[in-house]
């Protein structure tokens, strides 16, 4: 487990609470009656075997799926149905399991797209790229360049992302999410398909984002070493049901978790 940096996170500061959420597709239950919370400033891991409902959970949190039952409270506001762009507006950013980038656009344009919601100038000035719109564009470029420096992707900023290797695509995708300056960052298997070195780089970025910007992070990850190193608390799902919830040390020793991963003799 990672040594807590700074003051211990107060248990009361809940950023997002999921209460008895159930989600099914036709007759197939993806999530059944799951509750957990994410506290402000923590790194919260969601783990579980394949098909446990982890990605479905992220999709529920940022509005791609609408659960049939249960409530989600974000920043003290309980919502019923929220669409993805509204979640983005509220401060939730995410990355995807199979990188979802704008493949024809450059790395720079991809990350700039993350600033969409922050651009306010009217279209007339933007068309001329003059007056207030020019100042705004420059200001956002600065913010984006800082992210590019932070992620060490300066050399590829003009490359269309479709041509980049997978590890770098994942990094650009993280950059786009960071450009939104989110309060809650959802990472769906940020290290999947990476080699050891790339994993270490990505782990460092995740920790730095959490430390420097104070961004709350929820991540799904299969590499247990990474999960145990990075996260403050872990929630474990299996077949859509929550089977454990707690610090990495506690979860690691939990019998239900061990059974779920290794299988159990019936």
């Amino acid at each position, binding site marked *: 487990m990672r040594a807590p940096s700074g003051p211990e996170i107060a248990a009361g500061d809940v950023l997002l609470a999921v209460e008895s959420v159930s989600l099914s597709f036709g007759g197939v239950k993806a999530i059944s009656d799951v509750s957990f919370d994410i506290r402000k400033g923590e790194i919260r891991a969601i783990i579980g075997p394949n098909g446990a409902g982890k990605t479905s959970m992220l999709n529920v949190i940022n509005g791609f799926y609408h659960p049939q039952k249960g409530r989600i409270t974000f920043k003290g506001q309980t919502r019923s149905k929220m669409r993805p*762009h509204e979640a983005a507006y509220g401060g939730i950013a*995410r990355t995807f399991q199979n990188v979802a980038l704008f493949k*024809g656009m450059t790395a720079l344009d991809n990350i*700039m797209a993350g600033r969409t919601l922050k651009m306010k100038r009217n279209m007339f000035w933007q068309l001329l790229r003059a007056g207030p719109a020019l100042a705004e564009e420059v200001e956002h470029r600065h913010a984006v360049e800082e992210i590019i420096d932070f992620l060490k992707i300066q050399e590829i900023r003009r490359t269309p992302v479709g041509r980049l290797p997978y590890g770098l695509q994942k990094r650009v995708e993280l950059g786009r999410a960071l450009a939104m300056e989110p309060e809650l960052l959802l990472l769906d298997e940020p290290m999947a398909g990476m080699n050891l070195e790339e994993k270490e780089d990505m782990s460092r970025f995740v920790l730095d984002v959490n430390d420097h910007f104070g961004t709350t992070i929820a991540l799904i990850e299969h590499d247990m070493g990474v999960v145990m190193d990075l996260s403050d608390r872990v929630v474990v799902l299996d077949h859509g049901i929550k089977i454990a919830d707690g610090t990495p040390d506690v979860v690691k020793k939990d019998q239900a978790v061990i059974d779920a991963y290794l299988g159990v003799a019936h």
Partner: protein
Amino acid sequence: MVALGQFLEVLLSGLLAGVLYSLVALGFVLIFKASGVFNFAQGAMVLLAGLALVRSLDLMVAKGLPFWAAVIIGLLFAAAIMAAMAFLVERFVLGPLANQDGLTLFMATIGVTFMIEGGAQMLFGSNVYPLRLYPDDAWFMFENIFEGGILLNKLDVWGGVIAGVLVAGLALFFQWTKTGRALRAVADDHTAAQSVGISLNWIWFVVWLVAGLVALVAATVWGTKLGVQFSITFLALKALPVLIIGGFTSVPGAIVGGLIAGAGEKLAEAYLGPIIGGGIEYWFAYVLALIVLLARPQGLFGERIIERI
């Protein structure tokens, strides 16, 4: 010299006619790029825009307004009609059908075509209405170089200029505005676009609105050429080979495709016509499209489709 002069005349008039096809093809490309929908209704949208313009124009001129004021108000009125159409299509057709198969959406746009054609003629009438926005007299160029000069139609030249301005405007819109960037984002990946806060419903409205405004521009030129009438909807069929040649996803492709189709059919008419019989220009563009389909199915500028197995 006479032969060269004649060749240039045919070529230029072909290229300019091609630009007019491009004007219609552009509307298809915009919607196909952003939503993957082949919008069968683009021809009907040209009719709707043309009728809204010419009818309001005639009404205001009859009421004694000066022509220039009537044109401005008429254009604004027609733009408002196109915005209303975009809103209704998004709200009642594409919105409810989100995430459906491409073929389903294509069928839906066929339905939209009939609704627009019927609605437009119900609201604005179904006669032939002449429109006079551009000069359409003949224009002789290079008379000192070629005997008799090169004959061009001023209207076609105007069409070329307007298409150029339109494409430049669209390029700036796509490159520099927030909405343009959002449109490119949606064209690449719907899910990712939503995750950065882009509303698909809003983008679809914008796309149909822009395609509607492009249809309005096309209607001003084609309406002056043919008069605003129902047969203007068949322009959609003329745009089809242009799209196949240029590629369905490329704005420059729509322009180049139009130039090739236009020049090809006029040159074929002039030089092949005497040999194999006249009327070639009505089908030659489709032959060109067929050749492109065989050699390069995605079109000259389209995105290469690579299937992973």
